[in-house]
């Protein structure tokens, strides 16, 4: 019970009084004070006016570009591993990705074919070289050639 109210006590309970959240006897004590205190009567009137202004406070319209700017400046979301895998699978199914893969396969095939051709040429070259060596060795080891060479050397010595 708020007996013998001072102005400071009144002020402490002012919002509760205006919002009707005081007990009946406290409310009665405040009203009793109001009858004898013009200063508090003026204060309560000012506060009521203030609250009324607050309820109808002007609402400002933000600039039309603000929402667009906010959305544009929002960074792309961080995706989980599963979401990233799903996004990757989805991107594979896109026509442009499929076209890129197709082109890459053709190019790789062409490059791969070239290397096979090169390997065959290398083998052929090596086989020819081996055959040439073998022919040379056979020629110099044949008895006719050896005899001819020895006769030729003797002639050179006698002359």
């Amino acid at each position, binding site marked *: 019970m708020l007996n013998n109210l001072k102005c400071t006590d009144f002020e402490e309970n002012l919002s509760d009084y205006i919002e009707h959240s005081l007990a009946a006897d406290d409310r009665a004590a405040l009203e009793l004070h109001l009858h004898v205190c013009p200063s508090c009567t003026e204060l309560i009137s000012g506060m009521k006016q203030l609250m009324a202004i607050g309820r109808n406070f*002007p609402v400002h319209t*933000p600039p039309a570009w*603000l*929402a667009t700017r906010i959305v544009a400046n929002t960074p792309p*979301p961080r995706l989980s591993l599963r*979401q990233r895998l799903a996004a990757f699978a989805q991107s594979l199914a896109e026509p442009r990705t499929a076209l890129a893969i197709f082109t890459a396969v053709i190019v790789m095939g062409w490059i791969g074919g070239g290397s096979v051709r090169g390997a065959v040429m290398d083998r052929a070259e090596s086989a020819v070289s081996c055959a040439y060596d073998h022919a040379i060795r056979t020629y110099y080891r044949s008895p006719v050639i050896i005899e001819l060479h020895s006769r030729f050397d003797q002639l050179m010595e006698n002359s």
Partner: protein
Amino acid sequence: MGTTDAELLARCRNGDHSAWDMVVRQNHQRIYNLAYRYNGRFDEAEDLTQEIFLKVYRTLHTYNPELGAFETWMMRVSRNCIIDHYRKLKTERRQTDSLEGEHEQVAEVGKRFSNPADVLDHRELSERVHAALLRLSGDLREVLILRDLEGFAYEEIVEIVRVPIGTVKSRINRGRVEMAKMLKKEF
């Protein structure tokens, strides 16, 4: 918060940009006005609104619908963002200038309507109230904005500001009394 909004937030969490666009367009006016009411400057309110939405987007995964309405959660994020912005601004001002600049700026708003012969329409009256509001301390100002301008219930303000209900009520009452006394001197 309706099911549609819950679905919209779920889509935002999954990276749906069009859903995020809708969330921004549905709420940006309210956040913009909240920011303006806190600082009284339109340019700062624009930047703050963007900052708030980016923070909301980054922390969207922490919102739990079972713990409260999205609106209340977003207001808490906004309030924290605004307070952080003010702390940063105060530190910068201390380094470069004194706080007198802020008081001068607020007094300037009041001076524009100081002629008693003026017939005050509602808008002018609101501007006076806003100028007086900006003169209150941050603690009193924020609860007063949330209660009397934004129309939140005490319980919601407790959720947003994270202080006991007794403190919220006492701050609101003190703020109203100070405002009423300030305006009484002016009229």
